[in-house]
């Protein structure tokens, strides 16, 4: 049973949840975990994934490309460094999420890249 309590609060059985709309998506907080639920207006259409499951091959925020470690055509293993970014005073490694071949690189060293824009294409 889910019930609207108002002010972003929901009752789920005996627990309290929080939720807020973010354009087409909904963030939900339940017992110390947050989830990003995507999809249309109908519950049965919803495609959902945990907030921790994000595309690893793009920058999470504006960042500078400081090194490119992969070349197109190269075979890489899961966890291999592909691109090194720098933002918020830290180096942010972009690593291969799985084994495969690097299809194309869409960034250059020194380039300022925007969040969500693919940096590396894998096949």
């Amino acid at each position, binding site marked *: *049973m889910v019930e609207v309590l108002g002010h972003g609060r929901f009752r789920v059985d005996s627990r309290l949840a929080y939720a*807020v709309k973010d354009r087409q998506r909904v963030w*939900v907080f339940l017992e110390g975990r947050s989830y990003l639920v995507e999809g249309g207006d109908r519950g049965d259409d919803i495609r959902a994934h945990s907030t921790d499951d994000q595309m690893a091959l793009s920058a999470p*925020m*504006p960042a500078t490309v400081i090194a490119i470690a992969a070349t197109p055509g190269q075979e890489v293993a899961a966890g291999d460094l592909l691109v090194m970014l720098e933002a918020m005073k830290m180096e942010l490694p972009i690593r291969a999420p799985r084994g495969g071949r690097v299809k194309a690189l869409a960034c250059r060293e020194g380039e300022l890249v925007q969040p969500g824009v693919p940096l590396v294409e894998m096949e």
Partner: protein
Amino acid sequence: MERQPRRILIANRGEIAVRVIRACRELGIPSVAVYSDADARAPHVFLADIAVRIGEASPAESYLSISAILDAARKTGADAIHPGYGFLSENAGFASACERAGVTFIGPPAAVIERLGSKIAARAIARQAGVPVVPGETPADQSAGAIAAAARRVGFPILLKPSAGGGGIGMKTIRDERALAAGIEQARREAIAAFGDGTLYVERVIERPRHVEIQVLADNHGDVLYLFERECSIQRRHQKVVEETPSPALTPALRRRMGEAAVALARAAGYRNAGTVEFLLEGTGDRASFYFLEVNTRLQVEHPVTERVTGVDLVHAQIAIARGEPIPWDQEWLTQRGHAIEVRVYAEDPANHDLPQAGPLLLYREPSMPGIRIDSGASEGGEVSVHYDPLIAKLIADGETRDIARRRAIEALRNYPILGIRTNLSLLIEILEHPRFVSGDIDTRFLESEGANLRARASSDVPAEAIEVAALLRSHATDSSRRSTGSEGGGAKADPWDTLRGYRG
């Protein structure tokens, strides 16, 4: 007649600016906030008596601009500056510019910051004070070849650190010869990017060490006291994530030895005001060895855990010392009562290499519960900016035992909704529930060795309840009348007592 700051300018932002402004208000001292364009609506700006824009969002144009900050002090009649942590807090040039401008810098004298900021000079002071140090050197010849030779002399595994650095930025652990060349190149690049100085320091890695630091306070009248330890072994990439006091590894005798070593070092350095002497601890109990790491010549991020167990307000103490007042207690007066644990709530993605996240705080509600203190500079409707570090808040739990403090921290995190950006909340809960953390069996490699396991548990599939909540929010937003899903449908009555009954907050 003691010098009374008429007005204190806080040269910082975020939670620490809020924390220091509150202390000023408690003491009846008017405060001045400074802010960049990115922070025009930040909480610290509204809390201070006066707020001054000092420049653009980039730290170099604002919070790191000595001239902009001293201009703001002059315009507002501030006669003292609290630097917080980070930014200019350990910048000797800033402290001496304050001295020249006739503004009291709330911290140690510029010469002391300079001496302790150099790892070479700090180690020399430690040796002179009889405090053990980790084997290491800064090669005079900084070529890659000479650094490699120094690494072989010191012995693998080694740590490469920017000589000018701090806060773990640019540090690289190198376990063997094969990783050396790439490691030197990367450490050099980060050192130059972060500090404008590529000088590297080579140090032996102590295996399975704990990070235990001692808080000290020194006044202008020759008194130096220690306010016990903080254990900060839960780190990732040398950035602390969980801190606590007392340390599960210390005995009264070891605590006294480390405290007295920290005081001896502070005396040898001519220290003033609040500072922290960091040690690596090898082993536990009376037979453990400790090695001096560095002195942080400022208030630490994790200072609240010390405040919770000693009852001392460290910012009040800093201001009193800067006024020239003597510390009003002696060492015997100070005790540790109960236990305190701090967790750092970061905007970062634990499932994706802890990548920092920037974005809006669409929903942000701090829990209020027994034994919980939250130091934050965030509010609902605000945002985590790409320009600054991703710390959202610090949650500090205390209790009469370590286990009670730990359980309180978990309960508070489970009731701390932060939506709009990814955070490390679920990872923090997993750390606090991990059997090794529960038993106190931790070291600085805890997150490295347990991280994959913790992260797997911290990231779970979206449960059906969350999907239901999302669906209800969407439908509710479109027809705006109260509705409920599920078979019982009791929520349609919207009786407040009915809706409150099941909430176990």
